[in-house]
C-alpha cells in the first residue's frame, strides 16, 4: 500500500450523485488498471490505462504519469456500484507485475 496509495479508504454516496476516487503513486508507473471487487468477492476489470483518459458509461478514468496519479470518476452512482475499488500500477522496468493499492470501499445508499 505504500507505493500505491488510494483515497479515500471508504466512501458513502447517495444514489444519483457523483464522486471521484484517487490513486497516488510513489513509483514511476507506466500503466494503471482499475478493478471493482463486488460484494460477492469477484474482481472485475474496469479500465486499463496508459497516460490519458478513458470513459465507459458512467465511469471515467484518467492516468497522469508525470504527476503520478490516477482518478476514477463515478457519475450518477447506482446501488450496483457498491463494492471495493482497487487501482494497480505497473512500474517502469518491472513489466507484467502489478502493485495494488489497499482499495476504496464504496457504499451507495438509496
Amino acid at each position, binding site marked *: 500500500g505504500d507505493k500505491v496509495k488510494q483515497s479515500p479508504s471508504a466512501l458513502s454516496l447517495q444514489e444519483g450523485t457523483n464522486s471521484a476516487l484517487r490513486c497516488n503513486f510513489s513509483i514511476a508507473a507506466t500503466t494503471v*488498471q482499475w478493478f471493482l471487487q463486488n460484494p460477492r468477492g469477484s474482481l*472485475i*476489470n474496469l479500465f486499463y490505462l496508459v497516460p490519458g483518459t478513458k470513459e465507459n458509461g458512467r465511469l471515467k478514468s484518467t492516468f497522469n504519469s508525470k504527476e503520478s496519479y490516477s482518478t476514477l470518476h463515478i457519475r450518477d452512482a447506482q446501488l450496483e456500484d457498491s463494492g471495493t475499488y482497487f487501482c494497480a500500477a505497473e512500474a517502469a522496468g518491472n513489466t507484467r507485475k502489478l502493485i495494488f493499492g*489497499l482499495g476504496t470501499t464504496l457504499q451507495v445508499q438509496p
Partner: protein
Amino acid sequence: EAAVTQSPRNKVAVTGGKVTLSCNQTNNHNNMYWYRQDTGHGLRLIHYSYGAGSTEKGDIPDGYKASRPSQENFSLILELATPSQTSVYFCASGDRGSAETLYFGSGTRLTVL
C-alpha cells in the same frame, strides 16, 4: 469474455498438510498470476508465469511453489501449510498482446487450522 476458473472455492487444511490450488483459463493467455488478499495488505503477488513451463517469484513467494504444466493451467502449492497462509487466493490471466488487461478468477478461501 475471459474465463478464469479456480478450484476449490473453499478449502480447510491442517497445519503441515499439503494444499494445491488450481487455476484454469480458456483464453490462451500467456501470463498467469497468483495473488493473496488480506485485510490491510490488499492484493499481493505470490508467483507468476509467462507461459507453459515457466514460473517466476512474485513479491511474497516464501512458503509457496507454483507449477505451469500447460498454457491453460497454473497451480499454487503449499507443501507445508501454516495458519499464516489462511487467506483468499486469486488467480488471474493476461496477454501482453492485448495490453495485459487482467482477468481474475472467483477466488479460493483457504483456512489453515
